């Protein structure tokens, strides 16, 4: 019997080093469909690298990462990722979404109407004809979300999606992320923003210096972290104390 989807995602003793520098060490975790998983940690904790390993942009130097082995197709096709700095192609906003649909093999006839519908959902329909590179930072990130969401990914990875945005742009991006999760995509995102983690997360994975030191539901984590590293992060202590 083959599985319907690619989840769960399983990481077993995953490590990643570059030129002798260990960035991640012995990460074991399992991600199931459902809860929004937020990977929390300070700059340099290894959050982005962990996300890239899960998405397959990097290969682990130790351990293994596996999607549901019963899934028959290409797991790549069922995931999407939104980056901290959105990469906009030099074409219109609409054409950026159409491009993603084309690569994913959607029938030509449906691409434009589907892309327009997605732009509508992120509030960019009025800017559909605008060159994507001339949009503001917040609009670009919403467009990147529309491009990823249009693929109806089973898993959506987001790497610090609002790190470069002002509060109102952040709010609209967070609303879209919440909607994506409501509609059934598994969201796995990184952030160093505690407020954002509180607003979006169902569960927290706390990363500290390349190690997964704590994993808990959001309420449990913010009520009282069980490790001194996480407690220090919540207090805002400097990491070298």
């Amino acid at each position, binding site marked *: 019997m083959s599985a319907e989807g690619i989840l769960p995602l399983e990481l077993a003793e995953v490590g990643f080093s570059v030129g002798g520098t260990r960035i991640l060490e012995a990460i074991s975790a399992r991600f199931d469909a459902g809860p929004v998983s937020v990977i929390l940690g300070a700059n340099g904790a290894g959050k982005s690298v962990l996300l890239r390993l899960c998405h397959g942009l990097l290969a682990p130097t130790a351990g293994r990462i596996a999607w549901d082995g019963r899934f028959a197709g290409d797991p790549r096709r069922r995931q*999407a*990722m939104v*980056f901290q700095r959105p*990469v906009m*192609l030099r074409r219109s906003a609409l054409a950026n979404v159409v*491009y*993603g649909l084309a690569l994913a093999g959607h029938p030509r006839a449906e691409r434009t109407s589907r892309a327009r519908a997605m732009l509508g959902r992120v509030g960019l329909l009025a800017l559909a004809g605008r*060159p994507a*590179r001339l949009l503001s930072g917040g609009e670009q990130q919403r467009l990147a979300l529309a491009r990823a969401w249009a693929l109806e990914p089973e898993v959506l990875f987001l790497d610090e999606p609002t790190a470069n945005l002002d509060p109102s742009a952040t709010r609209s991006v967070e609303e879209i992320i919440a909607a994506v999760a409501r509609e059934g995509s598994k969201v796995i995102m990184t952030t160093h923003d505690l407020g954002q983690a509180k607003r979006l997360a169902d569960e927290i994975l706390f990363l500290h210096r390349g190690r997964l030191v704590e994993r808990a539901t959001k309420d449990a984590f913010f009520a009282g972290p069980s490790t001194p590293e996480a407690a220090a992060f919540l207090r805002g202590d400097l990491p070298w104390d």
Partner: protein
Amino acid sequence: MGDLGEAAATAIQMILGADWRLWSVVLLSLKVSLAATVLAALLGLPLGALIALKRFPGRHLVIVILNACMGLPPVVVGLVVYLMLSRAGPLGPLGLLFTPGAMIVAQTLLVLPIIAALARQIIDDAWGEYREQLTSLGAGPVQAAATLIHDCRFSLLTAVLAGFGRAAAEVGAVLVVGGNIDGVTRVMTTTIALETSKGDLPQALGLGFVLMALVLAINGIALALRSAAARQGA
């Protein structure tokens, strides 16, 4: 200074006089150099993209050689093509030697490394920015190359124009493989060389002005197209 003034006057007379022999020389120059540039772009842009995107052993050496080939001496390229196309050469049976076809082949070889090397650098830089996003969206190497060529089209246009400038200005390659035969393979640069050696400097300089005006016009048109497209934010 007198020579230059006389040359300018000759150039204007030549253009106004619209003598058919002059026009056939100008047209052949344009035809050969444009054909060579188009061919070199069709081959060089994908080649540059390929070298930019692919990681293979010896890649750095290939890049060094390609960059060095931007400075190929036209006469040497002409000589190699001459040997290939001469009656005893491997491509002799084609009968191309001393025809415009041979000149197009020689100029294509001359321009190809320029377009490919510049395209490689431009696309390599863009790939640094696009790599993760395109990989995430599932683009294969061919799709990625096509996307990068499309997105870098304005910078690549500059690379193609550099190639055209080289083709239009060189004399060595077309002289060796074309033979400067009046009415058959005589182009502007070979005419300039001939008129200079005959001592008809105003005639040579006049043609030189025509040549420079043409190159300037083509660059102007390309730049206008580029900025028109840029205004639409493409």
